[in-house]
């Protein structure tokens, strides 16, 4: 079966194509449109997926949308009426959006993509998330937990994935209804802390390491947690169910203190009382979330009696919580869909139709390099056309040696090769890399290259055989999370001493382990760097500047290179050096 999955109209629109159970391509629309977290119908991503599979729309058996819009509309109608008259303004806004366009999504998809309505199927939001995790995992029997803001009406779901006569099945065990959502609670506190919702949650996670969970008692009054994994939000403190732009009420500020003004300075460590309070609130939020997730995992275990866990949904991108789930949760093995957010729903919708409805073989997600690649000849032509001076390397070893040499003397550079990554993380195909040994390098990358807050940490990539030297894999010994940077790991004493650019203030790092079979060119670079410095680790951050999506094409990579303080850029086998262009 040839199945195209799409997600759109909330955030992170994406498309994925699955042919006979093989994931041929998957990409987010933002990489093509250059609009961060672009939510519009992913026409360009669909076009790319069809090109990669060498198919036309007429040859696609089914196009599967990742959620059911009519059920979502019903939930919005009912929740808005329940909040009446407080939500009158948001009601008007929602009705304009829905009656004006979103309700007619089916005909719009058919019009924009040129598919017939008979080709078009609709999955359920959390089922799509569940399929994206379970069907990509190596498990036959697993509990599947999906946690995000809200889907059609559920905010958190527990499924049981199993095989019946060789066919994968996904059964719903329990779900939590809107507005009781750990994802929306996290997002509301993200807004309280002055960061943008759906984007600033990573910053809150990083900020939490600078504080102490001093507000856990206050958090207990924000939401109550039941032993059965239920969560009840106290509506006194939140307004996301009836207010269009503000997700918390003045009662929250009375409880936790005034909210942070967006854009106001944040420097840590700090003697400023308010700055420390923000960090303490972030730490309390993070701890509360982790504690709740552990209760939920206990219930998932009781419901499914499985030894393995699959996680998806935006909350599953919380790598600090994932570590605690691995270490303290009731499951032996844990797998997290690398594109756990709404983009992953596109892949899940396609996989559900392919593997569950049609019984195609299940894929094994060994790499997230599912995006567009660029032929070396086209890169050379681009550079020649722009009149850029570059050195072409015919031998990968030589290129790796040269780049490793440059990094070992403190240079920072872009590393562009192969297909771009699926999901929010750059894993060595569209990365900015640097020497991890000096904190000054981290500060330079934050200040002059990524133009972001100083308190935010950077992630390391490490040779698989050296992981134990620098990081504690813990119970994640089967290394299912390690290749995709889905969990943090405590740093060893040696790492704390020698890798100051990539060990966060709490002594952990969000590690990507580069195995023997994955990403050979990046692995060669790590080996070359180890030969020069004795350290098989590199600082790795995504190749994008502030508020931009990760670069997809050579032109975008070159643009980021020119507009930032990067010292060099590799585009496949071409090396461009800043002081030579």
């Amino acid at each position, binding site marked *: 079966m040839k199945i195209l999955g799409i997600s759109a109209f909330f955030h992170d629109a994406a498309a994925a194509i699955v042919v006979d159970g093989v994931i041929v391509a998957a990409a987010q629309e933002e990489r093509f449109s250059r609009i961060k977290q672009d939510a519009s119908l992913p026409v360009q991503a669909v*076009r790319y997926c069809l090109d990669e599979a060498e198919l036309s729309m007429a040859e696609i058996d089914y196009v599967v949308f990742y959620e059911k819009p*009519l059920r979502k509309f*019903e939930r919005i109608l009912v929740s808005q009426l329940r909040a009446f008259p407080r939500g009158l303004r948001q009601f008007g806004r929602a009705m304009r959006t829905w009656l004006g366009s979103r*309700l*007619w999504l089916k005909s719009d998809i058919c019009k924009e993509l040129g598919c017939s309505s008979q080709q078009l199927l609709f999955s359920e939001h959390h089922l799509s998330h569940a399929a994206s995790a379970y069907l990509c995992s190596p498990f036959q029997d697993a509990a599947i937990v999906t946690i995000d803001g809200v889907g059609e009406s559920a905010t958190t779901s527990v499924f049981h994935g199993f095989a019946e006569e060789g066919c994968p099945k996904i059964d719903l065990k329990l779900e939590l209804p809107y507005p009781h959502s750990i994802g929306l609670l996290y997002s509301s506190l993200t807004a309280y802390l002055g960061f943008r919702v759906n984007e600033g949650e990573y910053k809150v996670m990083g900020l939490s390491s600078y504080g102490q969970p001093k507000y856990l008692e206050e958090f207990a009054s924000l939401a109550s947690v039941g032993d059965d994994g239920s969560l009840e939000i106290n509506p006194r403190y939140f307004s996301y169910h009836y207010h269009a732009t503000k997700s918390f009420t003045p009662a929250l500020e009375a409880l936790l203190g005034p909210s942070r003004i967006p854009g106001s300075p944040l420097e840590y460590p700090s003697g400023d009382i308010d700055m420390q309070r923000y960090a303490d609130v972030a730490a309390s939020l993070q701890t509360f979330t982790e504690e709740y997730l552990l209760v939920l995992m206990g219930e998932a275990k009781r419901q499914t009696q499985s030894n393995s866990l699959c996680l998806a949904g935006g909350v599953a991108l919380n790598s600090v919580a994932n570590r605690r789930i691995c270490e303290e949760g009731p499951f032996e093995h844990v797998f997290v869909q690398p594109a756990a957010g709404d983009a992953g729903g596109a892949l899940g919708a396609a996989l559900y139709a392919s593997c569950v409805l049609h019984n195609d073989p299940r894929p094994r997600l060994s790499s997230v390099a599912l995006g567009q690649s660029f032929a070396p000849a086209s890169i050379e032509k681009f550079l020649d056309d722009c009149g850029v001076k570059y050195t072409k390397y015919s031998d990968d070893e030589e290129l790796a040696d040269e780049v490793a040499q440059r990094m070992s003397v403190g240079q920072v550079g872009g590393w562009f090769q192969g297909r771009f990554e699926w999901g929010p993380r750059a894993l060595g195909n569209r990365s900015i890399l640097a020497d991890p040994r000096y904190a000054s390098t981290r500060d330079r990358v934050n200040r002059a290259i990524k133009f972001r807050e100083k308190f935010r940490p950077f992630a390391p990539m490490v040779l698989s055989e050296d992981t134990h030297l620098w990081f504690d894999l813990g119970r994640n010994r089967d290394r299912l999370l390690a290749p995709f940077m889905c969990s943090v790991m405590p740093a060893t004493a040696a790492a704390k001493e020698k890798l100051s650019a990539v060990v966060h203030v709490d002594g952990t790092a969000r590690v990507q382990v580069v195995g023997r079979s994955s990403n050979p060119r990046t692995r060669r670079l790590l080996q070359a760097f180890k030969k020069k410095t004795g350290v098989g680790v590199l600082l790795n951050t995504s190749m994008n500047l502030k508020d931009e999506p990760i670069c997809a094409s050579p032109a975008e990579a070159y643009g980021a290179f020119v507009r930032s303080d990067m010292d060099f850029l590799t585009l496949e086998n071409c090396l461009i050096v800043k002081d030579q262009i």
Partner: protein
Amino acid sequence: MTTKVPVRSVFTPASWGQRMAERGRTAGELAGLLIRNGRWWLLPMLIIMSLTAVLLGVVHVIEYAAPFVYTVF
């Protein structure tokens, strides 16, 4: 690791008639969903809102309809 040549990704958009028919089916599906879930009482509100939206659209598009609308209100 090479870029595929985009040879067959030409979309064939649906016609206006097809889109309108599809929208009609969507409205029917929504009505069916609300009735099945015991929320049929939402339907009158939706119909009034939709008709208001259509009326406003018509008023914006056809300028000379304004005097007739004025007399209605």
